[in-house]
């Protein structure tokens, strides 16, 4: 017997199972590591709310299972241990929309009953009395029920629990009690993205005050700062490399007879530029081969451990890399490179160790800034954080220390921050496979286990351009960032009936498509048509390349690039005679994501696909189908034959393709489908 076989029978007995996955301590009261001690009658109930030794609470999960209240005893025996409390379900299903998706909600009404705590209370036999109802005790013992997982399964008499299908997985949002009936409200897992504030507030905080940071271009400027003890100053003036001399020995390949600009940069142990000498040098002919070397010598700079030499001749605009050396003396025998230009400002880092900033002795040369927070375990190996309004980049981390920090990123103020300031994590994603990036977002909320396998299928198959995300500093919700990427990939995302978070390309066509017709599938009197005029568009606009991190994701002023596709035929006076925009923004395509030409090609193709879909209105068809067609799920394509829609020749729709954008259970034996015409 299989689920599909039973579902397809003309008469069968349907069973609903509900599982609540609640926290439960693995310990036994008073047995190590549990240190609780008390009268036997007053022992805990292995829940956190009743725990008497919370530091040793060991969290596991206990499943509470429920079944329909009206199933016969024979079925109760088959599912022994399930409480027959389920009265009704009220599904508010997901609905796939062109932009964004409606989250799914489930309300379950359950009966309450006196309960003897069998299989719930480990210490039941030690209590002096047992009283109370199931749900009132459940709530009192599980005060932290919010956010715990609810799973709904459907099956049929004759099937085992393993054959049942998961049709909803979500998080408890609220429980209400009303005259012996308990109502549990749950929302789907995708909704959790909508609750997560972005930037991501973490549980980490600063463990010590972080002083303000200034910039000064000279010592006198630094001494004039209005700085307090433990503040910092970045000096942009270089130490001078003195007594530099040049000599031209034979044997190199550097062309002579030219003038060169040579820059020697001294770096400290942490790779910061602290010293510089840059000057012109004219190479003269000494030998006939017109190629020579340059020997450079000079005084070492205090604190320097490395010297890099940059060289450029008068005919070239490109700098060439010199040789990294641990000492000032070097002989350049060739131009190797190319490289970027030498730094124009120094990066000398000082910390004020005393109250008097006017005393140079109080400014101590300091290592690169490390910031220690209470818990860095959930932070990336490198990335951005936000303290109050300042954005800080860290290049690495070790334990709870964020290392090599650069403050004041994106022109934010490098202000003082008190100890215990909450640390916000900022997403910043280097160019990468977009489906890898999508999966990463779910890693933030630990829901990776609920992702459909299609995420990985698409990830593996992806051969297109890279996507990237610049820092978003303005408060928003993680869901907005997620659906931005889904949208720019021309995909849809929703929580499926199997409890998995789905991803599907608009363009994907499966190998086989179900059919619906009025004889074999559509319930009599259940059809309704909405021509959905609002879905028609005449021009398609895409903003991209977000440069202003302070603005919201849907503020056009945050973007510097735009691509527009207009269908002038649609807008003509002979046709619709209107302009209807499909306006979208994306923070995931920027000029550093991939090559500009490839990005533009991608967006143009995307707009063409949207145009093909939206240039005509996409009518909705609502209809009900019996349980036997329950295998049709949200996101499926179906070929529909119906008399409720006809073509221009007056012929009924026959095998016309629609997509299921909503599937709503009605009673226990049918579904209402909302179908969207697919062009």
């Amino acid at each position, binding site marked *: 017997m299989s689920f599909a076989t039973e579902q397809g*029978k*003309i*008469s*069968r*007995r*349907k069973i609903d199972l509900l599982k609540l996955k609640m926290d439960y301590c693995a310990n036994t009261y008073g047995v190590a590591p549990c240190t609780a001690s008390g009268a036997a009658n007053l022992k805990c109930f292995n829940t956190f709310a009743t725990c008497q030794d919370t530091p040793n609470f060991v969290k596991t999960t206990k499943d509470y299972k429920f079944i*329909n209240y*009206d*199933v*016969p*005893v*024979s079925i*109760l*025996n088959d599912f*022994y*241990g399930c*409480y*027959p409390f389920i009265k009704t379900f009220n599904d508010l299903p997901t609905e796939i929309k062109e932009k964004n998706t409606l989250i799914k909600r489930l309300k379950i009404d359950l009966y309450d009953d006196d309960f*003897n705590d*069998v*299989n719930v209370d480990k210490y039941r036999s030690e209590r002096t009395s047992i009283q109370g109802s199931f749900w009132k005790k459940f709530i009192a013992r599980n005060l932290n029920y919010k956010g715990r997982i609810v799973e709904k399964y459907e099956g049929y008499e004759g099937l085992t629990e393993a054959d049942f299908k998961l049709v909803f997985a979500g998080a408890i949002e609220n429980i209400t009690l009303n005259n012996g009936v308990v109502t549990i409200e749950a929302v789907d897992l995708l909704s959790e993205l909508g609750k997560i504030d972005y930037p991501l507030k973490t549980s980490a905080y600063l463990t010590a005050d972080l002083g303000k940071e200034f910039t000064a271009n000279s010592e006198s400027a630094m001494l004039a700062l209005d700085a307090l003890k433990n503040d910092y100053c970045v000096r942009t003036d270089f130490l001078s490399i003195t007594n530099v001399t040049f000599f031209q020995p034979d044997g190199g390949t550097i062309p002579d007879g030219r003038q060169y600009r040579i820059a020697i940069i001294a770096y400290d142990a942490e790779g910061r530029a602290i010293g510089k000498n840059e000057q012109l040098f004219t190479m003269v002919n000494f030998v006939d081969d017109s190629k020579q070397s340059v020997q450079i010598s000079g005084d070492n700079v205090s604190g320097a451990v490395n010297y890099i030499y940059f060289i450029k001749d008068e005919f070239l605009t490109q700098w060439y890399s010199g040789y990294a050396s641990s000492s000032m003396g070097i002989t350049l025998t060739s131009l190797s490179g190319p490289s970027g230009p030498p730094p124009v400002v120094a990066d000398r880092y000082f910390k004020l160790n005393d109250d008097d900033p006017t005393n140079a002795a109080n400014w101590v040369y300091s290592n690169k800034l490390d910031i220690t927070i209470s818990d860095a375990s959930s932070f990336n190996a490198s990335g951005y954080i936000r303290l109050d309004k300042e954005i800080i980049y860290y290049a690495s981390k070790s334990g709870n220390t964020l290392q090599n920090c650069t403050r004041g990123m994106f022109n934010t103020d490098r202000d003082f921050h008190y100890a215990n300031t909450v640390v916000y994590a900022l997403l910043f994603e280097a160019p990468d496979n977009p489906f890898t990036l999508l999966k990463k977002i779910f890693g933030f909320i630990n829901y990776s286990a609920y992702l459909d396998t299609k995420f990985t299928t698409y990830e593996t198959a992806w051969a297109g351009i890279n996507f990237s995300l610049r820092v978003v500093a303005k408060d928003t919700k993680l869901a907005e960032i997620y659906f931005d990427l889904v949208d720019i990939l021309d995909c849809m995302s929703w929580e499926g009936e199997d409890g998995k978070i789905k991803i599907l390309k608009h363009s994907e066509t499966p190998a086989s498509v179900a059919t619906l017709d*009025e*004889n*074999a*599938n*559509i*319930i*009599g*009197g259940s*059809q309704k048509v909405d021509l959905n005029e609002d879905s028609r568009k005449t021009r398609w606009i895409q903003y991209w390349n977000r440069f202003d991190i302070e603005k919201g994701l849907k503020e056009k002023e945050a973007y510097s690039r735009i691509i527009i596709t207009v269908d002038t035929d649609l807008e003509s006076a002979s046709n619709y005679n209107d302009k209807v925009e499909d306006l979208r923004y994306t923070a995931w395509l920027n000029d550093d994501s991939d090559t500009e030409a490839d990005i533009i090609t991608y967006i143009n193709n995307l707009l063409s696909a949207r145009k093909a879909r939206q240039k005509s209105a996409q009518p909705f068809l609502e209809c*009900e*189908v*019996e*349980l*036997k067609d329950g295998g049709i799920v949200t996101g499926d394509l179906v070929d529909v034959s119906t*008399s409720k829609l006809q073509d221009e020749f007056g012929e009924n729709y026959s095998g016309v393709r629609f997509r299921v954008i909503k599937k709503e259970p009605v*009673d*226990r*034996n*049918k579904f209402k489908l909302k179908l969207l015409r697919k062009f």
Partner: protein
Amino acid sequence: MNPVILYKNIFDDDTLAVTSTDADAKYDKDNLIDFRSYTKWKASSSATQHISVNVVDAGFVKTASGGFIELASGSLLESANQGGMAPNAIGILNHNLYTIGATVKIQHSDDGSSWVDIYSLQVVSDKAILKLFNENSVSAAYWRIEISGATAAPEIAVLMMGVKLEFPYPPSSPVIPKTETIKLSSEYSEGGHLLGSIISNYPISINHKWTKFLRSWADSEFVPFWNSHGKKLFPFFYGWDLNTKPDDVFYVAVDPGSNYQIPLSMLNYGDELILRMKGVSE
């Protein structure tokens, strides 16, 4: 035979004991007496099992001649209260006793050690059982069920043993033993074809009426049942004719829509009593 209700339960006592219980925490002896058809006791093995109870406090005296103690002086001291109980009906619901081939006996004892068989239960199916025994009203301090010869661990959802409530005569004619309906949902296509049906269960309802019964019977038998059990919607066993229809045993509760009334117009008699019950077909 006259209709019988079993609602009293001597096993509903702190001294309820079982030989063994399955290690799965879902099973417990207390499930035998919680009235719920979906919670069970299950033994840990197929070995002989006893479910026992001690129905009197210490100090019970069983008299030799049935009611009097002969003192050494020759005087007779009437025992004020013989104590003990004399159950005469047993009900078992949602069990596997037939499937596992169990032999079931009812036994009693005065001391909890020496047991006397009083009734051997003939189990012919796993459906609800309601049997009468102990016609001689033997009273004892200890009572137990013995389950032996099983091929697998026995399990029982509801176990009741107590003094029956017997109606004075059969229900008024015509007697409809039960009415069974079908709770289902069916859908038909636009083209008129049956697409499918979902069956939930088969509710049963029983509406039996008695007329011209002794008021004394109603006061001493029915009213206590109604007050302690019926109107509180506690389930009970009902057999309308256990002689000719021994399989017509129903585990039901009073229909919440019932009106309880006993019109009285004739001396010593109640005019009419209607008992509406509802349950689910097994």
